C-alpha cells in the first residue's frame, strides 16, 4: 500500500462513526464508507496534515450519505409511531399550570469555550446516538449535513409540520441528555 492508501484505510473507523450516527443502519453506513474510500483512492493527493485529509474525506462521505438517505427515503420517513410520539416533548421540563417554569433552567456557563471539548464532543455524540432512529437521522441532517429544513422535507418527502415536531423532540431530548451527562457532571 502507498502511504496515501494507508492513511485512508486508517481513517475507516473515523468515517464509520459519522456514517452510523447519521444513517442508523450498519449496512448502509459500511456501504457509504466503502464508497467514500474507493472515491478517495481514485484521486490520490497530498495534504499538509491529517486534519485536512479528514475534512476532505468527511466531505466525500457527506455526499455518499445524502445519496443513501435519498435512496432509502421511504424507509426513513416512516416515522416510528410509539407512545413517545404522542406525548408532549415539553413534558420533560416541569411547568406550572399557568405556564411558568417550576424550576428555572440551570446556568450552563460556556462549555464550548472550555478546553475539554474532546470529552464534550464524545458526550454529544453519545447523546445524539441515543435519540430514536428517525429523530436522530433528521437531527443529524440538520446539524451534521447542514441541510435546511426545506431541503430535508424535499429529500425525504416529509411535511414541514412532521419535520418540525421531530426536530423539536430531538433538541429537547439532547438538551436533557447534555444536562444529565455533561453539565451536572461538570458542576459536581
Amino acid at each position, binding site marked *: 500500500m502507498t502511504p496515501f492508501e494507508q492513511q485512508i484505510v*486508517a481513517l475507516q473507523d473515523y468515517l464509520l462513526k459519522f456514517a452510523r450516527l447519521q444513517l442508523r443502519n450498519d449496512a448502509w453506513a459500511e456501504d457509504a464508507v466503502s464508497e467514500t474510500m474507493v472515491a478517495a483512492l481514485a484521486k490520490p493527493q497530498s495534504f499538509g496534515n491529517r486534519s485536512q485529509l479528514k475534512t476532505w474525506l*468527511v466531505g466525500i462521505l457527506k455526499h455518499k450519505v445524502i445519496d443513501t438517505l435519498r435512496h432509502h427515503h421511504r424507509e426513513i420517513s416512516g416515522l416510528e409511531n410509539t407512545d413517545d410520539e404522542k406525548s408532549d416533548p415539553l413534558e420533560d421540563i416541569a*411547568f406550572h399550570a399557568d*405556564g*411558568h417554569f417550576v424550576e*428555572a433552567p*440551570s446556568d450552563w456557563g460556556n462549555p464550548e469555550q472550555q478546553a475539554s471539548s474532546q470529552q464534550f464532543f464524545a458526550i*454529544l455524540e453519545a447523546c445524539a446516538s441515543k435519540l430514536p432512529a428517525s429523530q436522530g437521522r433528521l437531527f443529524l441532517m440538520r*446539524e451534521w449535513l447542514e441541510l435546511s429544513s426545506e431541503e430535508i422535507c424535499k429529500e425525504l418527502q416529509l411535511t414541514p409540520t412532521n419535520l418540525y415536531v421531530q426536530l423539536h423532540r430531538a433538541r429537547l431530548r439532547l438538551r436533557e441528555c447534555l444536562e444529565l451527562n455533561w453539565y451536572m457532571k461538570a458542576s459536581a
Partner: protein
Amino acid sequence: MPFNRTCREVAALLVAREDRNLGLADRLALRMHMVICDACPRFERQMLTMRNSLQQWRNYTAPDDSAENAVPPK
C-alpha cells in the same frame, strides 16, 4: 392578548427557532417576554450553547494523535 405568552409557549418558540423562521408576532412576543422573565433567558442561553457546541463539533477534526501518523524514526 396576542403578545402575552407563557414560559411554556416561549420555550417552544426558542426550540422551534433553531429550525424555522418565526413569524413577526412570535418574534415580538418572544422579545417582550424576555424582558420581563428570568427563567426564559436562561433557557435561551442553553439553546444557544447547544447551537454553538454543535457548530464546533461538526467542524472539529481530532488533532493528529494516532500512532500511524507519527513520524517514523530515522
